[in-house]
């Protein structure tokens, strides 16, 4: 029996690095990572069958529902190798599985020596998985290719073994075959982790250096920081210091997760565990930062630390203006647990008081919005997402624009916009339509490779702004859902950009202003004015809807004045009913926003601001 009772397993702070294996699992969202992790918890005996529940490690409701892992965790698994009969400690470091969290993924990878590349053998590898695989290879991790779901009738292990072998540079027969669901092959996988992944190296006597790969806010304990120790040892009650921020804390608690937190006498070289300092804000304990001893500090931080940088911005407004303070408190609370979320108050003429929020990407934005609505019971309107622009005026001054309505009206000399490198994996049938989409979005082809006979990897450089505007939905619909997308920021480029304003009866509706490529200005103007004509009900006067670049009108529609809004009859029996109808209409009236003299229903704002018809649902696991 290869599981070891916890009491007999090597203990934290007393484990020889040679007995440790640190690994993570790289997988696409529905390729069965959580099920495999559950199975590993069961087989190694750290969770008994009685306490097992599905997706044990995914903590938040949203994670469990959407089937995606937002926050990673690390679990210490004792394991007796079936190959050499020795005891080992396997630290499984869970990684977030989405494009927006590339940096967090890279820090999780940096905490490991090896990675399991887990692929559903009915579906094949996806773009995000590929991106993370490349990231792991760049970090010199040992890759163990694993085909999951071999129990499925639609499984094609031979086909996808070839694909994986080609990517990883091994032989197809080196790919392990497992089923997280039935447990088949999982023990062998644990043995192979021991056999193939190198043990961590480090100096036990050097000043301590530990990498923060995750940081989570807990209501009861404050911030829980997850670290991997590279050198030295961290011990309870010790004064520690964060290298980048210079903040000093006392270690109130230190321990390992197995899979519930267990306090220990410390953690040493190669080990993975948690730290608690009583800090209440994750921004004081940043992912990628190095923890060292205050009294015996390391001279050099571990490499790779970056400040999280918001890439996508959107205005969030409460539908009921009275909810503004609740929204403010809610954002404050979310930020405790999300160092990447930034926001500042913003006022919109059309939408009232709200916040301009910065996110890592579209999914991050969606998750934050969903948490605000669900956990704080808020109803929100969000403006169309936009990117950050660096605008140089003719007088040489520079302005950073995160809200299109703040785009300078004066003489603009140059504008720079963020550029990403996008990787799209797709069946080769769709190459034509994908290239057409990317070209229409100002993309430049970077290259194309066949992963197998009928699957292709296409690389494009694109302005991020083009991706935040319904690109993913377009890609999915053009490829019947088969293509997958990954992108990473690679800098900025000058763009021929203009701001298009939308005017209702001559008044600019700030929430509808958009920065677009000059060639897209006219179609955007026509699209918005047409959409608004359909969405805004007729008023007592005619309402012109115009799209304009500066003072130049580029598109125009009219909402004709209402001609009839009266019921012909009102006799004795009708009076009560009519009065009660009036009282009922008070509620409807509340959902109207005034833009100048024009009444615009909330629904019109929501519909006009959404970039697609049914909301982004392509990434939700059913």
């Amino acid at each position, binding site marked *: 029996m290869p599981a070891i009772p916890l009491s007999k397993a090597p203990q934290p702070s007393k484990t020889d690095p040679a007995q440790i294996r640190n690994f993570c699992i790289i997988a696409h969202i529905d390729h069965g990572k959580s099920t495999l992790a559950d199975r590993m918890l069961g087989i190694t005996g750290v969770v008994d069958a009685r306490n097992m529940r599905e997706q044990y490690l995914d903590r938040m409701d949203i994670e469990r529902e959407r089937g995606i892992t937002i926050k990673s965790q690390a679990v210490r698994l004792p394991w007796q190798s079936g190959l050499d009969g020795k005891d080992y400690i396997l630290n499984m470091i869970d990684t977030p599985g989405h494009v927006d969290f590339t940096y967090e993924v890279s820090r999780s990878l940096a905490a490991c020596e090896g990675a399991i590349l887990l692929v559903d053998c009915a579906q094949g590898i996806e773009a995000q998985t590929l991106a993370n695989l490349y990231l792991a290879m760049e970090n010199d991790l040992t890759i163990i290719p694993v085909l999951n779901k071999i129990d499925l009738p639609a499984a094609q292990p031979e086909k996808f073994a070839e694909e994986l072998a080609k990517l990883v540079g091994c032989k197809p027969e080196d790919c392990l075959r497992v089923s997280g669901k039935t447990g088949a092959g999982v023990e062998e996988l644990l043995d192979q982790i021991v056999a193939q992944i190198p043990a961590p190296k480090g100096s036990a006597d050097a000043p301590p250096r530990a990498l923060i790969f995750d940081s989570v806010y807990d209501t009861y304990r404050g911030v829980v920081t997850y670290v991997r120790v590279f050198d030295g040892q961290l011990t309870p009650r010790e004064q520690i210091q964060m290298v980048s921020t210079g903040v000093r804390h006392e270690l109130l608690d230190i321990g390992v997760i197995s899979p519930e937190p267990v306090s220990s006498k410390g953690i040493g070289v190669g080990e993975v565990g948690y730290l608690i300092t009583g800090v209440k804000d994750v921004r004081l304990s940043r992912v990628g930062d190095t923890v060292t001893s205050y009294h015996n500090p390391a001279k050099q931080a571990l490499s790779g630390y970056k400040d999280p940088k918001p890439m996508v911005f959107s205005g969030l407004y409460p539908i009921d203006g009275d909810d503004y303070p609740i929204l403010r408190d809610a954002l404050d609370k979310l930020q405790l647990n999300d160092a990447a979320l930034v926001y500042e108050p913003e006022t919109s003429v059309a939408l009232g008081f709200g916040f301009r929020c910065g996110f890592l990407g579209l999914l991050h934005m969606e998750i934050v919005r969903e948490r605000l609505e669900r956990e704080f019971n808020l109803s929100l309107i969000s403006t169309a997402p936009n990117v950050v622009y660096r605008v140089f005026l003719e007088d040489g001054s520079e302005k950073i624009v995160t809200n299109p309505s703040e785009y300078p009206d004066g003489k603009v000399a140059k504008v720079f916009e963020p550029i990403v490198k996008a990787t799209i994996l797709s069946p080769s049938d769709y190459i034509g339509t994908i290239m057409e989409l990317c070209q229409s979005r100002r993309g430049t082809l970077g290259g194309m490779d066949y992963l197998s006979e009928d699957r292709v990897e296409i690389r494009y450089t694109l302005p991020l702004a083009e991706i935040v505007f319904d690109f993913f939905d377009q890609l999915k619909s053009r490829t019947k859902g088969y293509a997958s997308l990954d992108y990473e920021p690679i800098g900025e480029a000058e763009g021929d950009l203009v701001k298009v304003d939308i005017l209702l009866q001559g008044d600019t509706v700030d929430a509808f202003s958009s920065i677009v490529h000059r060639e897209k200005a006219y179609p955007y103007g026509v699209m918005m004015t047409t959409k608004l004509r359909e969405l805004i009900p007729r008023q*007592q*006067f005619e309402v012109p809807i115009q799209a304009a670049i500066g003072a130049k009108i580029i598109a125009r529609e009219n909402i*004709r*004045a*209402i*001609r*009839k*809004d*009266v*019921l*012909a*009859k*009102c*006799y*004795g*029996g009708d*009076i*009560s009913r*009519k*009065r009660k109808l*009036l*009282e009922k*209409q*008070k509620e409807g*009236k509340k959902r109207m926003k005034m833009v100048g*003299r024009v009444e615009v229903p909330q629904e019109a704002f929501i519909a006009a601001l959404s970039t697609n018809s049914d909301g982004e649902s392509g990434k939700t696991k059913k």
Partner: protein
Amino acid sequence: MAKVERPRSSATSALSFYIHIPYCSKRCGYCDFNTYTPKELGTADLALITTPYVDSAINEIELAKHQVGQAIVPTIFFGGGTPSLMPSGEIARLISSVRENFEISSEIEVTLEANPDTITEKYLSEIFAAGVNRLSMGMQSAVSHVLAALDRTHDPANVKQACEIAKRVGFKHLSVDLIYGVPGESIADWQTSYETAFSLPIDHISAYALIVETGTKLAAQVKRGELVMPSDDETAEKYLAFDGAAERAGFAWYELSNWAKPGGHCRHNIAYWNGSYWWGIGPGAHSYLNGRRWWNVKHPTTYQSAISGGQSPEANSELLSEENMRAEFIMLQIRMKEGIELARLDSRECEQAKSFRDSGHIDGEQWHSGRLVLTPRGRLIADRIVREMLV
């Protein structure tokens, strides 16, 4: 909360009567009124049920007397249903009952809604003798295909004949109802209808834009796409065309959907709009007295069994708060030619109204002399204006 006065049982000076006749020989496709056909009631002949029904109605008139005490009755209105289906003797019994229980104004207006297809000179003479002095006839349209769309089968010529008979009998006040905005009705069709009405010996016209009421045959036909409702814009055009033509023909507008020659106004309906008191007799009828409104149980059978069991037929009621009364005042008064005295509006309401004056929906000259009066275009959006002022 505004203080509400409890209904008092005396000191009511005027009390109008609405008497509901809940029977029709056939239900028209657009109608959602509280009316029943012999088939629906499971009887072969309405004559078998009218006498017991009128007995119950008379009991309710006595109940009104018991509750209200003394009152002068300025108007009685027989509505339906099809009141002209009632034998003249039953109409006479009902009028007599009101006379016996209340003081009758010397100028009393007694209106009866009549179906021009079925009335005879004999019938009209008898009800005229009983005290009915005003007839309101359902003409709807003078164009056959429009009548067909409304599920009405009468010959348009019957209306003219009925009016002539009524005149001969001695009726001074005759009114016709017209309906416009019917599926398939052209502007020219509508013009034919109202020009025909103008040529009749009448002093009053009600012209209603067709309302598609849920649950009617018409609603089902529209939903299935068999009939297509004209656009609101076209219906608005028809209203304006009619209003102009009616004025030229001597019918002056006095309420949103009502026009009259001098002295031809329907005083009964004006009583509703002015917030006067009225008692509605019969199933489903509404009543209003001293800030309290109530309405009777809907079905004739339930109504009659309540009455015969010595119980009130009241189904439900509401006490109107100050705020309710104010809302109703604005809602009703704005539909009328006299409009609303500006002094009675608060500053917010005035502000809202002003924007409609600026957009040409409220008459500028009248405003200047202190009154809010809708222009023809304003009448067409009266509900919106009320909403903006009150909500």
